[in-house]
């Protein structure tokens, strides 16, 4: 039996979480270093997965399969395709930066009780989320996926509710109330989504008799498993609803601005760059594979919802006064692009969407983390409280600008490639929707540049005049992300090579072919 690489990639952060939580209260710094080392070791394992993965090989590789709960027809089945590999690498890459950026976020404010260990808890929860996210990218058993999809809500909930942003406009009590509201809203939205999916998961079992993604997809493809049209549609809706809450898609998005606004910047990155990707990933893997016909049936509605997300998210981002909420609405707009790419049902659209997931993760992480550094210096999240920062802290301003430019998909930075692919992929099949979606890009330029202008340029406000520039730790966080943005912007091939075969598989699942170019068709 070969080494269970996929299990190890998830088990390492899980064990690391337990170990971090067990560090004694006084050894706070040791806990931080332990968490960082574990996350780096996980990154190494993820890179091994990346190297061992053969893009031209089988659809699911590095598979593991063990009996688990036979009575429910559940097996412990792991396997990765190109999309999964790319997202595991993204997750493992971002977590060390999240930990490093949140280095001081969970230091206890008062030295009172010795048993309350917020620091250990904070880093342990981050590692726990990492483990569950990685497992949900790896699971090829629907039930197994569902378990981690749901269970990751609990550590996320504690991260949002337990460790709020200290830069809050109101009083402490007010801040605690809003934070707790945001955490509960996050949990309830996602829990309702998850429970509705549970009904669909049970329904799927009643129809199919087991939970193995490969077996069901195969049976669907060769016609041995026939689903009544209505059954398939209901099941599809059950699954899609949960993923649309997670992703989030308009009109199920309202938890995201609250959660990202109240959480610390690293946790906000964790939400939008890592956890939410499970939603879009699951649409590709589960909705399209298990319910191809229903996916095609629902496409028009989903595309319209995605389009609304793009435009509406961008419009609201323009109107925000709070930096973190602005990034949150920008993310809603970007998730609209991702979902549009997935349901455009073209290979460019879907590779673009997958690439977009990776690039959005990196660019949002860069922008949000720098924003977090900025906010922690001034102690305010309001855009109006800043001005002229680029004169005082040029490096901070510069990195903020690059993060912002990546968010608006400037050519030469990574998100441009993916956004372009998504738009091209959508345009070939749905030209009108493609055209309207481009307004999202224009609005993106507006909200990022206005944000930069208001905070960084202009006369130096007295409160920011003594603002220190980025420290070494912060530079270590930001520099690699920016380097990666530029690298993938000019040379996206490493990612597309891994992703493309997986996308072709998905395209053949839904039995869609790319529309022929019109010029050629006219000949």
């Amino acid at each position: 039996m070969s080494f269970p690489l996929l299990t190890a990639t998830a088990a390492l952060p899980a064990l690391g979480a337990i170990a971090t939580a067990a560090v004694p209260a006084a050894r706070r710094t040791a806990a931080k270093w332990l968490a960082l080392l574990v996350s780096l070791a996980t990154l190494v394992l993820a890179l091994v997965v990346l190297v061992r993965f053969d893009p031209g090989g089988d659809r699911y590789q590095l598979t593991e399969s063990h009996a688990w709960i036979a009575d429910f027809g559940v097996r412990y089945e792991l396997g990765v395709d190109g999309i999964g590999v790319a997202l595991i690498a993204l997750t493992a890459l971002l977590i060390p930066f999240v930990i490093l950026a949140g280095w001081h976020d969970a230091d206890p404010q008062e030295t009172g009780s010795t048993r309350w260990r917020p620091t250990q808890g904070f880093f342990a929860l981050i590692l726990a989320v990492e483990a569950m996210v990685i497992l949900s990218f790896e699971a090829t058993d629907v039930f197994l996926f569902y378990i981690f999809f749901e269970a990751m809500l609990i550590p996320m909930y504690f991260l949002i509710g337990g460790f709020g942003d200290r830069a809050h406009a109101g009083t402490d009590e007010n801040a605690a109330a809003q934070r707790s509201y945001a955490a509960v809203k996050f949990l309830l939205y996602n829990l309702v989504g998850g429970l509705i999916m549970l009904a669909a998961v049970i329904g799927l079992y009643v129809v199919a008799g087991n939970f193995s993604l490969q077996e069901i997809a195969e049976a669907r493809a060769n016609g041995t498993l026939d689903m009544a049209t209505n059954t398939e549609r209901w099941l599809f809706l059950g699954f899609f609803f949960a993923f649309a809450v997670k992703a989030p898609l308009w009109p199920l998005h309202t938890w995201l601005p609250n959660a990202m606004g109240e959480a610390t910047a690293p946790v906000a990155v964790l939400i939008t760059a890592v956890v939410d990707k499970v939603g879009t990933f699951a649409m590709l893997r589960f909705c399209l594979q298990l319910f191809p016909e229903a996916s095609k049936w629902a496409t028009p509605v989903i595309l319209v919802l995605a389009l609304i997300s793009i435009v509406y998210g961008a419009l609201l981002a323009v109107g925000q006064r709070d930096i973190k909420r602005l990034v949150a609405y920008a993310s809603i707009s970007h998730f609209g692009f991702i979902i549009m790419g997935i349901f455009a049902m073209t290979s460019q659209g879907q590779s673009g969407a997958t690439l977009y997931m990776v690039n959005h993760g990196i660019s949002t992480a860069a922008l949000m983390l720098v924003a977090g550094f900025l906010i922690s210096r001034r102690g305010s999240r309001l855009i109006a409280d800043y001005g002229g920062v680029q004169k005082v802290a040029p490096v901070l301003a510069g990195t903020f600008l690059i993060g912002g430019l990546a968010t608006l998909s400037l050519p030469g930075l990574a998100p441009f490639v993916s956004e372009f692919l998504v738009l091209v992929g959508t345009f070939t099949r749905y030209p009108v929707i493609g055209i309207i979606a481009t307004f999202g890009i224009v609005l993106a330029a507006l909200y990022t540049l206005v944000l930069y202008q208001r905070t960084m340029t202009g006369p130096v406000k007295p409160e920011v005049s003594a603002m220190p520039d980025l420290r070494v730790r912060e530079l270590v966080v930001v520099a690699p992300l920016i380097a990666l943005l530029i690298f993938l912007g000019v040379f996206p091939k490493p990612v597309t090579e891994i992703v493309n075969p997986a996308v072709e598989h998905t395209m053949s699942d839904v039995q869609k072919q790319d529309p022929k170019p019109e010029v050629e068709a006219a000949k």
Partner: protein
Amino acid sequence: MSAVAVHSLWTMAADPIEKIDAPKIEYGQLSPTLIVIGAAIIGVLVEAFVPRKSRYYAQVFLSVVALAAAFAAVIGLAAGGYGTTKAKIAAMGAIAVDGPALFLQGTILLAGLLAVFTFAERRLDPVAHGNRVDSFAAQAASVPGSDSEKAAVKAGFTTTEAYPLLLFAVGGMLIFPSANDLLTLFIALEVFSLPLYLLCAVARRKRIMSQEAAVKYFLLGAFASAFTLFGIALLYGYAGSVSYATIAQVVDGSIENVNPALADTMGNDALLLIGAAMVVMGLLFKVGAVPFHMWTPDVYQGAPTPVTGFMAAATKVAAFGALLRLLYVVLPGLRWDWRPVMWAVAIVTMLGGAIVAITQTDIKRLLAYSSIAHAGFILAGVIATTADGVSSVLFYLAAYSFVTIGAFAVVTLVRDAGGEATHLSKWAGLGRRSPLVAAVFAVFLLAFAGIPLTSGFAGKFAVFKAAAEGGAGALVVVGVISSAIAAFFYIRVIVLMFFSEPKPEGPTVAVPSPLTMTAIGVGVAVTLVLGVAPQYFLELAGQAGVFVR
């Protein structure tokens, strides 16, 4: 005319006296019940003859040994195949020894054992006049606040009668799910109900509330018992027998050898429907299903918390066992009549319990309403009317009872000057002050909410799957919606514990003795094991899912 002939004018020779067969009792197969009831009787003698100082130790020892021995007997019977191939009707048709009976008896015994541990806890209340005290009144007979009560407290009395009462209750609960005729069912019902009424009344703190709870429970319980008894009478009128098997035969028309005296009334559907409805009503009262749930919050709140935990766990197990047997063995022929009714009951129970729980401000009342919602989930499995339905209900009951006892045991730890601090506002910031206790309680709450990787999820999945396969897909949808509503208030408690600032004069967490720690520890361990690796126990429940008839 001879003397003999004269005599024969007004007498006639009787048939020779028929030999009455001595009833055949399978002592071995009834041993779990016999051990527990025997120990309960010895416990009464202990109360009478053992000096007051040593009664506590004698009673606790006796109860633990009896319950452990009875559990060993259940394991022995199950290992001997009585749960599967050798399942049979024992005690002249009164008791069924089969898979569901043994599984539920094992669950009840373990729940009872953990309950004894929480009953015996004497470290939580402050020492009174040099005596360690438990949750029970010094002298149940003395009026609250009277001089005689003060004297009893000063003398260090304790209500050690609680242990034999617990054993009697467990004994009745062991018979209840295995009863195979309606009279045994009724006697078992009374045998376990009466001790519970008494146990509710003997709280050391807040005695008036405790007595009020007991009176409410007793009155409503007596009312429900009367319904059951009336239903039994009507069913007897319908079938001419109280035996489950005979009634089932009459229902599906396969009866032979009809007693001519009964032929006229036998098979009267009005008697059947009204009678069955009344018996089922009595059982639904015991499981706490809406609309027969009114007693639950008051009784759960007023009873001493260890008793509440025991009652919430074990009563539910026993009553669902009896309900399952009644619906699956006696009334399967009537399922087209009872299923729609049970559908409605399950839906209102799930939704009602979950929605009303949102407004609760007392942790014990909150758990009471949550137990109502759980009764609804279990009913969804009952409605499946498949073998999977039975085993999923068995599994759910086992999972649920450990979570419940553990959760109520945690409630006993959080105390202020007035005893247990059950008002939710007092739990604010508990996670800051005692992270471990709060984390343990959070595990129990997540299990109640059915979050994956806890036993609650495995159980919920099992019953919903059975219900969906049994054609009750709509119930599953209602089930997940009420789960979502229910999740809200479990989460609210977690928010309160972890995200609220502790109040300056908030409650303290008492350090319990190893007894309560064992109860809580076992609860957590079972919750996590059944959540992560439920396969063995699902298989066990699956094998146990067939009734003997």
